[in-house]
């Protein structure tokens, strides 16, 4: 079940790419479903001449489940430059979420081989929280509930961790409220969203909105959105898509890059025909 075996690295130069990519399309394999359209920033660092900066380089990465020692990732390669949007696809259980979680340092998995370089640093040597403050963000496919910790306290803690790293003074609860309240608009949520406990009793859509809210508050240089579109109704999907697109534009965030993981069984096609099979969309 080597899923990421075909190394695929898609680079989308802004100048030549269409304004809108629909990644999860196929004539045969895919049931029609809502997909997240991701717009490539019309202007990014890539436009200013020179090769875009290398952001993430995954080479021959292998990983096993720490507890059962069962191999999941069997040689994954992926290269991401600034300004690129990637879609990682594969059928259910193929290891997309595992790949995402391995990148952010989840303790359930053990790396058994390969390398991951992020902004020139050995990512695998970094603690999960160091990866996060270095601008690597992952939205969870199923975010965990944390009873007893309010959303605003959680966001405040995370934001302050980042401020500390940058040598900036931390924000108290009142200042932080001033910073975070306007961000709620991005995900179209009311203020009481902040007072609820983290993900506790949230609907599927609310959980996803909350992940995007965290992204909006913390910012990111490389955002991995794991099935951010799944389980959403039309309204929620529209809100989330809009939010992600908004975060991608250079005005809202300096550098937006999305690696989209989907649950569609395209791995086989990739395996047989390589990236070209889908690159002609």
């Amino acid at each position, binding site marked *: 079940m080597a899923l990421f075996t075909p190394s695929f690295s898609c680079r989308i130069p802004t100048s030549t790419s269409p304004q809108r990519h629909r990644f999860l399309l196929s004539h045969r394999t895919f049931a029609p479903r809502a997909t997240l359209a991701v717009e490539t920033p019309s202007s990014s660092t890539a436009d200013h001449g020179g090769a875009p900066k290398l952001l993430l380089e995954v080479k021959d990465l292998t990983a096993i489940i720490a507890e059962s020692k069962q191999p999941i990732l069997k040689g994954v390669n992926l290269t991401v430059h600034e300004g690129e949007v990637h879609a990682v696809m594969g059928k259910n259980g193929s290891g997309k979420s595992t790949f995402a979680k391995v990148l952010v340092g989840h*303790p359930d998995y053990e790396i058994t081989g390969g390398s991951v370089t992020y902004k020139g640093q050995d990512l695998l040597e970094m603690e*999960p929280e160091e990866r996060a403050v270095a601008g690597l963000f992952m939205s969870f496919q199923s975010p965990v509930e944390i009873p*007893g910790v309010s959303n605003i306290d959680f966001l405040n*803690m*995370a934001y302050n961790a980042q401020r500390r790293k940058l040598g900036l003074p931390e924000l108290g609860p009142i200042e932080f409220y001033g910073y975070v309240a306007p961000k709620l608009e991005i995900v179209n949520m009311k203020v009481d969203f902040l007072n609820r406990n983290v993900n506790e009793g949230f609907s599927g859509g609310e959980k996803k909105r909350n992940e995007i809210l965290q992204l909006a508050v913390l910012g990111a240089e490389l955002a991995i959105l794991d099935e951010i579109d799944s389980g959403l109704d039309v309204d929620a999907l529209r809100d989330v898509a809009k939010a992600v697109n908004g975060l991608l534009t250079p005005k809202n965030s300096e550098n937006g890059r999305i690696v989209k993981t989907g649950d569609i069984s395209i791995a086989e096609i990739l395996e047989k025909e390589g990236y070209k099979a889908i690159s002609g969309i």
Partner: protein
Amino acid sequence: MVTIHPMSISTLNSYRPKLCTLPRSGNRPPRTTRYKVFAKTPTFAVLSDPHVLRLAETLEDSITSSSSSASPPPPLQKLRDISSQSLLSTPWPTRKDEPFRFTDTSFIKNSDIQPIPPSSTQSVASLSVLADNLFPSLTIVDGYLADSLSQLSELPDGVFVGALSRLSSENIMEKVSKYVSSFQGDLFWSLNGVGAPDVIVVYVPEGCKVESPLHLRFLSLDGSDKDSKTLPISNPRVLVLVEKGGEISIVEEYTDGDGSDRCYWTNSVMEVVIGDGAKVSHSYIQTQSLGAAHVKWTSVRQESTSVYKFAEVSTGGKLSRHNVHVQQVGPDTVTELSTFHLSVGDQLQDLHSKLVFDHPRGFSRQLHKCIVAHSLGQAVFDGNVQVNRDAQQTDAGQLTRSLLLEPRATVNVKPNLQIIADDVKCSHGAAISDLEENQLFYFQARGIDLEVARRALIFSFAAEVIESIPETSVQKKVQSLIKDLLDPALASREEKK
């Protein structure tokens, strides 16, 4: 008959094999008796325990010498008679008695127990600790009502809050007579009955809804040095009587006032009688000195369609034992118990609860949480739920979670359901756990380091229980109290790493 036996201790043990020292594994036969007299000798042959008799005499002497010449009100006399009668045949409990299997009371037994006389409490009139009081309140110092520290002006007409000895209404007196000591507890219950100088009565007449919460503050001021063998004892006793359709919220607080580790023994009893359709919300906060023994009984009798909501936070005492007994005596009755125990030192926190259903459509939710944050700390939970034959369509849920933060910290958990009715919905669960990996990782994935994340999760552990306290001001106070206790405990834990 279905008897769901406590999740076997060995199962629990498997959660964290190294951290819980749970004495015996293996299955024991289901227990159906309430009190198991340890059976080398048959029950009828239990003889008077000379130690208990001596203590009972000391208590009786202190009562006669301290009370005024007037004879006690009849209900009080009755209480004393019944209690001393039962002491004649009640031995001091040992670890061989099931209710005390994990709770060693020999520290109390081996002390020189001295009743606190009323005179030594006069100096408290000047106490200013109490200035923060927002509610109508009654202050009881070392077991004696302190008028100068009490403030009851806001209570509605017909409500009586005060000492039984000063109760003039014959009507209320009659009702008190009916219920005082209508229940029989253990040795400590009876010792209180003999040693209580008076009974604090809270009476809410029919249909009366008391708006502001009533604060009952029990202060422990007299105490001996840690090294002395003397153990001053106080025996506060409260009877709460809420008539049909009445409503009241009570905050019962035990504290030593100055945060020292002086030694004393508070042996307290509260009886609550809730009439048809009446509602009582009861918060119980125990922050006694870490040298103290704190033994407490809460016995509740709920008539039909009544509601009893109880929230407890106990952090104090070297030895703290709370017995909660709730009896539903009518149908469609609601009971909610939420409790949190914290051991940050060399101390034992014990909750023994018993919920008895005898009528149809009873409802109960029980949540017990505890944290043991010291290698010599200990927690005990025995949660009995008894659903008897006529209690059809009972819906009873019980959940307990324990968090052990130090190697060798101990918890003994015994959820215990006895179901005789056949159409019931009962659930229970027990977990002894460390913090959730997935929750910790969620913090880390957002840039928050592990220690900050651990702290946040530990503090949040008690949140569910604290949120069940109705008064926001009490919630806040308890939150900061827990934070103040956990902060140093967690700091010393980090140093060791």
